[in-house]
């Protein structure tokens, strides 16, 4: 029987009451008395020298309060990068300056040049049009492989080249990997592009900066997944505001998917300008600005080689990847193609030798950083695609080839530095075969054929490392932050609790799921527990929500704090009942003394903590409030198996997702309803990446897909019914809840399933197509089927250099 309360129950979300009535409080819903509005004048060219900015005419325009340029920010710091990668040769990455407003040069379309603060937004826009810019247009570098050639225009003149770093992992294994590949019975090679994406949360970014004249305190309201991180980065590194004078509030946030992790120029600007102008300053991104300023995602070009022995055991894996950083280093950009990608290249398999090379490259495009999955979808996609291709080349069943190479004994130390604590990949594959009704596929394929459609089946496994992350480990890897999480649990005198967490909920349902845990631990109703998050003024220093970490890390901190609460409450109960601490039991909200009929209600003890008349004051402080910081000692490793069935229209190349099934192992589950929803949403984004979404630039660096008219977002008719299951559970061995994290899995596991399915359909239709790069738009699929050129616009920054458009769309067709 499913539970109806506590851990394991599908408790309905309490936050839905405000979301469904329209009473959510999003940042754009916040209007501060006296606020002015800022409009950013942005570069409309990809690369140019700023020879002059004349604001004199604009300054006299109606309503203008002040116009800022890069010069005004010379005294403050640039936007910091939170991760330093060390290259193959032991050298630190090249790290360019990232000014709040462009200084000297503009480096991508959308780079802010001036900021006009005015009484109204319309006045700010009017004035911005009166600013005269003298821009000397420079050649832009968009294609990564062109960017690293000698003589290529440099994005940053003070760096030696456009190469941010050349990273090798594990460098010591390189020779052994090369040798294993040269001696292999079979080597499958695949070149592929992991397409550039735009996260596109439905809420555009917003920032409202405020400065109190009387106290000198700053407040920033912002659309962030991690307000404490913004406070630290912006306060300490950009504006020089001590954290105790700076409050950052991220209220209800309308989706993030990674793009709201990072510290952005507009946040620093509004905070700084509020003091400079003595007025609150508000910025609301337009959707156009979102397309050209929110950090983009993915954008890898990879060559992968998988070596197998005569028995089809994987013997070695070698990859070479070009990863686009864009024009500046976004907050966590360097970590994505390295530590979040290379460490996952073992996948679910016991490949003994792995070498990953990543060249991170600056281009005149928007900065690229983490997007749902961040590095792990890139790893999973290349691995699961090359395995599928190998199975086809060898004429073996792709599921059996995977099973043959699955890791089956745990803990398992991979050759890429991580240790999987637990898992059962055969179990999720078995479950997948059941829920996807793979046995019925051939019959469905016949039905499709009658309609003139080719049906294909794609299956893959995935693993991810989440629950980010052990601070000492990531510190060695170059992180400039710790990755613990915090919680303060405050028990009120009448027994209700408030959990103040450093995690941030922007759709994940923490306000519902976290109380399920605490209520279970104490044995009280869930509605006695309230969650507070998103405000640095009333939550302990926390690192926020990303990397599927909230429950695994933030939830663990909450458990630790609650354990401290219970331990102290037991001592109070023991004192009142004149028993020994060790004899006190807490169950169903009642303290009992073992072996007696004595008992005290939860509320009696909490009241005693605050009205300490009968209380061990000699031994303990009154009150009942505890804080815990939890630093995980390993990542968690959710894993699973996904299956996609598609129908391809052979006349047009149009792909329809007919069925999708996901069998995931997330360890223990707190709220199955929320887990289902996370997986659904992740799969929709993965289908979007595989079939629809394509962030494309032309050769001059203009963003072609700059609105929803050209950037194809999944709509209701693009997605199938989802069949999801998470009954295979191997609990995480190292966190108190045994949970692993489910936020990114869907987006990680689904793209290869979709592409594998399309390739299968084409092969079944008699077309010898072995790869097509995402998104598998009708035009690309048709071109691949017909040996034609799929012209998907002009250049794409990710284009491989062999890369005529034809090569791109046809991939490995032979």
């Amino acid at each position, binding site marked *: 029987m499913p539970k109806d309360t506590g851990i394991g129950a599908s408790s309905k979300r309490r936050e*839905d009451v405000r979301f469904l*009535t329209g009473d959510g409080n999003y940042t754009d819903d916040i209007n501060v008395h006296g606020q002015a509005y800022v409009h950013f004048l942005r570069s409309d060219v990809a690369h140019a020298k700023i020879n002059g900015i004349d604001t004199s005419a604009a300054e006299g325009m109606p309503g203008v309060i002040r116009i800022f340029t890069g010069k005004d920010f010379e005294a403050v710091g640039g936007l910091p990068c939170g991760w330093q990668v060390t290259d193959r040769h032991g050298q630190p990455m090249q790290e360019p300056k990232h000014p709040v407003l462009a200084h000297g040069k503009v480096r991508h379309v959308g780079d802010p040049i001036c900021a006009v603060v005015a009484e109204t937004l319309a006045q700010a826009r009017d004035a911005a049009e009166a600013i005269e810019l003298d821009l000397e247009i420079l050649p832009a570098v968009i294609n990564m492989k062109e960017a690293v050639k000698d003589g290529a225009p440099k994005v940053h003149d003070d760096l030696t080249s456009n190469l941010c770093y050349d990273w090798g992992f594990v460098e010591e294994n390189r020779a052994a990997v090369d040798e294993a590949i040269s001696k292999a019975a079979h080597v499958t090679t695949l070149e592929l592009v992991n397409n550039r994406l735009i996260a596109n949360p439905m809420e555009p970014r917003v920032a409202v900066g405020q400065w109190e004249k009387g106290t000198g305190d700053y407040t920033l309201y912002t659309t962030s997944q991690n307000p404490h991180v913004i406070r630290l980065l912006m306060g300490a590194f950009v504006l020089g505001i001590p954290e105790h004078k700076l409050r950052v509030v991220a209220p209800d946030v309308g989706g993030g998917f990674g793009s709201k992790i990072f510290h952005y120029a507009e946040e620093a600007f509004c905070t700084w300008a509020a003091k400079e102008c003595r007025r609150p300053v508000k910025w609301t991104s337009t959707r156009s600005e979102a397309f050209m300023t929110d950090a983009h995602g993915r954008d890898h070009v990879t060559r992968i080689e998988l070596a197998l022995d005569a028995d089809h055991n994987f013997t070695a894996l070698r990859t070479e990847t070009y990863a686009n950083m864009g024009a500046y280093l976004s907050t966590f950009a360097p970590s994505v193609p390295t530590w979040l990608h290379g460490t996952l290249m073992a996948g679910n398999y016991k490949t003994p030798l792995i070498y990953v090379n990543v060249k991170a490259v600056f281009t005149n495009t928007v900065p690229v950083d983490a997007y749902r999955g961040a590095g792990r979808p890139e790893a999973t996609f290349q691995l699961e695609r090359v395995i599928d291709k190998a199975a086809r080349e060898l004429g073996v069943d792709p599921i059996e080839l995977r099973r043959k190479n699955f890791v089956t004994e745990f803990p398992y130390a991979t050759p890429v530095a991580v240790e999987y604590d637990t898992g059962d990949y055969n179990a999720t594959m078995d479950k997948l075969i059941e829920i996807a009704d793979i046995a019925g596929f051939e019959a469905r394929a016949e039905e499709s054929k009658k309609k003139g459609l080719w049906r294909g089946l794609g299956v893959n496994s995935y693993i991810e490392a989440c629950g980010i992350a052990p601070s000492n480990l990531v510190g060695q890897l170059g992180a400039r932050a710790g990755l613990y999480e915090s919680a303060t649990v405050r028990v009120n005198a009448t027994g209700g609790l408030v959990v103040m967490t450093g995690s941030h909920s922007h759709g994940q349902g923490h306000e519902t799921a976290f109380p399920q845990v605490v209520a279970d631990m104490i044995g009280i109703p869930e509605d006695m527990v309230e969650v507070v998050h998103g405000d640095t003024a009333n939550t302990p220093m926390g690192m926020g929500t990303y990397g599927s970490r909230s429950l695994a890390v933030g939830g663990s901190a909450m458990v630790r704090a609650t354990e401290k609460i219970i331990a102290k409450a037991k001592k109070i109960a023991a004192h009142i009942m004149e028993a020994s601490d060790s004899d006190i039991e807490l169950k169903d909200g009642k303290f009992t003394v073992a072996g007696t009929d004595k008992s005290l209600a939860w509320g009696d003890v909490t009241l005693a903590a605050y009205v300490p008349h009968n209380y061990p004051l000699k031994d303990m402080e009154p009150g009942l409030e505890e804080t815990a910081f939890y630093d995980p000692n390993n990542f968690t490793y959710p894993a699973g198996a996904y299956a996609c069935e598609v129908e391809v229209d052979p006349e047009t190349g149009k792909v329809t997702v007919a069925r999708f099934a996901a069998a995931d192992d997330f360890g223990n589950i707190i709220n199955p309803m929320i887990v289902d929803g996370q997986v659904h949403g992740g799969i929709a984004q993965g289908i979007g990446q595989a079939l629809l979404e394509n962030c494309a630039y032309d050769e001059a660096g203009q963003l072609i897909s700059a609105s929803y008219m050209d950037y194809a977002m999944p709509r209701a008719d693009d997605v199938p019914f989802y069949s999801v299951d998470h009954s295979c559970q191997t609990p995480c061995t190292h966190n108190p809840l045994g949970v692993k994290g489910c936020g990114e899995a869907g987006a990680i596991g689904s793209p290869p399933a979709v592409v594998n399915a399309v390739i299968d359909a084409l092969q079944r239709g008699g077309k010898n197509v072995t790869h097509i790069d995402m998104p598998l738009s009708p035009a690309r699929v048709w071109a691949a089927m017909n040996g034609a050129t799929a012209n998907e616009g002009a250049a794409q920054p990710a284009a491989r250099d062999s890369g005529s458009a034809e090569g791109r769309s046809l991939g490995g067709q032979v």
Partner: protein
Amino acid sequence: MMPKTPLSFTLNGSETALFVDPGANLLDTLRRGAGDLTPKLGCAQGTCGACTVLIDGEPHLSCLTLAETVEGRDIATTGGLADGPDLHPLQQAFMEGFAAQCGFCTAGMLMAAKALLDRRPNPSRDEVIEAIGGNLCRCTGYEPIVDAILTAAARMQGRSA
């Protein structure tokens, strides 16, 4: 500067009168002028549906609607959907079916759904999908939303879902 124009309309059953700038759109007018923050600005270009409101019962994108064109008309937003503390059957079904995650598209989604059910009380699944075709959701993958609308329709017709 051009003079403001007086404008009156009915908002969720209440007479509303205010002054608007020439060219003001209905979304800004509702949010800033009338103080109804329930319709959301998602794209401001008529391509995401987050600002959907009902004008005389029909769904419209308030970001593309000039405020002056709603003089004397009847505007309904998500702010008026619940009956006091009692959620509308659509809201109830959305909650039970986990059809909202971050909540940002939800107000527009609910109004698109309400317009459908007002017109077609027993829609097919395909009709529901078509009716929310202009409403982007980045969180849910849509299936729970479609299911919730069908559930609400069934309940409003006294059928079991």
